[in-house]
């Protein structure tokens, strides 16, 4: 748990010390306190996946995660998977295949896809569908997202 309101964890590869009450929600810490606004607030109830971040590499709903639970752990947000120049293979594939329309769900999908491909570099379409089924998209009908993730898998070899 947080050490007297002081929370130490790794954020996007860098050590962070944040001061926050123990009941702070990770999403609030990221968006409001640390101003990492790439993590989106879609429902606050764990139903949409827009707030997905990676905790120790696993997709996690930051709106359902108490901030003190990430003490000593590694948190990756969309800002952490974006290269200093250009785009990651997953991000590039999302652009090229029209897997982002309104874009609000996109950071969550990119993180979910990034985690999937790290664990399973050549997923079947069914495995992709299962992996993304916790992220809602209302624009694309998901087909373009599946195509993008498959293309990213091919691009990454």
């Amino acid at each position: 748990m947080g050490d007297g309101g002081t929370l130490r964890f790794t954020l996007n590869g860098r050590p962070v010390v944040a001061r926050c009450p123990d009941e702070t929600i990770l999403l609030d810490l990221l968006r409001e306190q640390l101003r990492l606004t790439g993590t989106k607030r879609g429902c606050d109830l764990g139903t949409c996946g827009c707030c997905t971040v990676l905790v120790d590499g696993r997709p996690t709903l930051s709106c359902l995660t108490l901030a003190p639970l990430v003490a000593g752990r590694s948190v990756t947000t969309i800002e952490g998977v974006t290269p200093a120049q250009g785009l990651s293979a997953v991000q590039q594939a999302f652009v090229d295949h029209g897997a982002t329309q309104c874009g609000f769900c996109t950071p969550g999908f990119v993180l979910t896809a990034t985690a999937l491909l790290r664990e399973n570099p050549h997923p079947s379409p069914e495995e992709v569908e299962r992996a993304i089924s916790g992220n809602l998209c209302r624009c694309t009908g998901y087909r373009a997202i599946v195509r993008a993730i498959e293309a990213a898998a091919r691009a990454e070899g």
Partner: protein
Amino acid sequence: MAESSAPPHRLLGGRIPYVEGPLKVTGRAEYTDDVQRSGQLVGRLLRSPWPHARLRSVDVSEARALPGVAAVLTGERYPTPFGVLPITQDETAIAVGKARYIGDIIAAVAATDERTAELALERVRFEVDPLPDYPDPQTGLGPVAEPIHARGLNGSNVQKEVVQHFGDVDAAFAHAAHKVRVRATFAGVTHAFTEPLATLAEATPDGRLTVWSATQVPHYLHRALSEVLGIPMHRIRVIKPEVGGGFGGKSDPLPHEIACAALALETGRPVKMLLDREEVFFTNHGRHPTQNDVRIACDPDGRLLAYDIEAVIDGGAWSSFGTVTTYYNGVLSMGPYRVPNFRYRGRRVYTTKPPNGAMRAHGGTNIRYSVEVALDRLSEELGLDPFDLRARNALPPNSTTVNEFRITSTSFLACLEAARRASGWDAKFRRLPFGRGVGLGCGFYISGSNSPIHFTPKMPQSTVHLKVDMDGGIAVHSMQADIGQGSNTLLAAIVAEVLGVDLDRVHVQRVDSDVSPVDLGSYSSRVTFMMGNAARAAALELREKIVRGAAALLHASPEELEVVHERIQRRDRPDDGVTFLSALHEAIASTGALTASGSFQTKAMGGTFKGARAGTAPAYSFSAYVAEVEVDVETGVYRVPKVWAAFDCGRPLNRLAVEGQIEGSIHMGLGQVMGESMNYRGSRLFNPSLLEYKIPAPQQMPEVEVLLVGEPDPEGPFGAKEAGEGPLVATLPAVANALYDALGCRFSELPITPDRVVRALDVRRKEGRPWKGA
């Protein structure tokens, strides 16, 4: 992207990734909730727990006294009514005198933080007289004890009644060889966009108000803010950041937007209001729960003789777009067919439930289901293939419907041919084993409402400004609203196409009413057609100026020159040319930065009878979809493995975007036919969350084969028509007709859930009607 091929279609017609894609995939795209102003307060809303109640008195003293509370507002402060349609303004920012549904806004508070704001809301004290609630539109058709609005027709809750009759329907039915009747009931559905509604407002000491909001129509919000707050439009600045989906749900000016601005005026500080997901469901403005009754008659050869339609439409608490909805549920029933006699009676009824409004393929979806199911039955009765029946009745190009819609381009026959061939229809229809089937659904939709929602109808529907300076970057200003459909990309591509320049020279500026000329925004599938024409006109004007610069450098006349990729050259001697930049610099040498403007105004159109303009459009899209279904006949669970979607959007300008719109529309249409439902018990919405209101999962989404078969439209920009809403409508009947082919069962209640499938199978067995040997 082909960079080297010759104009005029270097970019357009290809697959153009979204210009703002890199911002979206990196989380750098800025949505309203990402904008932050220093000293910002949190705005929260108190919502009525009563479906219908007279607000007798309110005491906000305790709430105001709470430390950290900056302002508490009730309805009396800004009582001026507003509404998206000038003729039915019946909403207020905060309820005045009455609450009309569970979720109606009855007070607004601004405080230093969310917790203080919530505490303040708890301390607002109301005294109310509960009034009878009216959840069922049927009970509001006649006089009621306590009409929801004083403007209900003759003491009823009827907001709008439309009665139309063209030709002689009774005579047509009297002589018809075949008649069918379909009565269907549709649950309400909602947009379920992922970005919640959000607004940020700031009043500054110079007497100006700035509002950032998640809106599809910045102009209507601008206007409503001005009317309700009593501030001239030129002192209000509306900014549209990125918008996380709309589908119609962000097209009305919404009360929370005005309440947020009111709190900013009251406090002199920035106020941000982010609605929670439950509030988004209660704000709704989704597709109307509807009951319709469709009778269709045809001659012995299957030629359509008449439609006779009735619809009762559940409006919820406000008018919203309802007058348009009421017309559309009738007039959008006819195309893509020629129907010589037509009668319609539609009534939209206020209920004490969350308001309904415009949702993707507004007004054209529920009636399309009933008509296409009726045609499926008619084809069975005639022993005529469903494709042949439809082809026999197709509206020809350059024709006029019985209610005087002008039809110009239609590739509907090509849609039918493409869908039939690609789906392997002739080998599947009535030939697949029991439990599997294919179904056909067709449709058409407006490519932009011809009649603008404007107080000043002489003004153009769309205007685009271009500015180019010595750096060679082209700034594009327009109030068209990209909500994810790709209109910024299309706008940039049209400008780049006409000027012959690389796409990265063109920067579409964020919508900002201080600098963006008026465009009516994203609704009625109007953007490609109207903004596209305006953009083309602006770019042509700019091109002329730059070509004159080249002509001076080349000692030629402009007529002797042609624009190619980043270069202007002599037609007869292509080696003799100058770069775009040289020509530009020559052109601005004498005048400074160049500017150009283009606009689009619709032509006068439609008949002279009452309501004649409803449904008129400068063009229409057409579609023919085949859906295949596989049903587990024990559980009623079914899946749709594939949809063949033949669509006529004229010439597709960005195939990536068009395919995305079609796949997304099919997803949304499948949601409505397979399971989405706003579940009410009485006046109370019972499933206001994305967990209980289920949109189709990735595993439920079919493979989609998109077949773009349209011929260029004569008036569309580069021949284009809409592809944003029309692609939805054929989905629902295609699935229902496929279920009939699979099971021999018809469905009159949507959504068609597994329990309804099982019940229908039981009824068919009891009635002893065998189907495909089962």
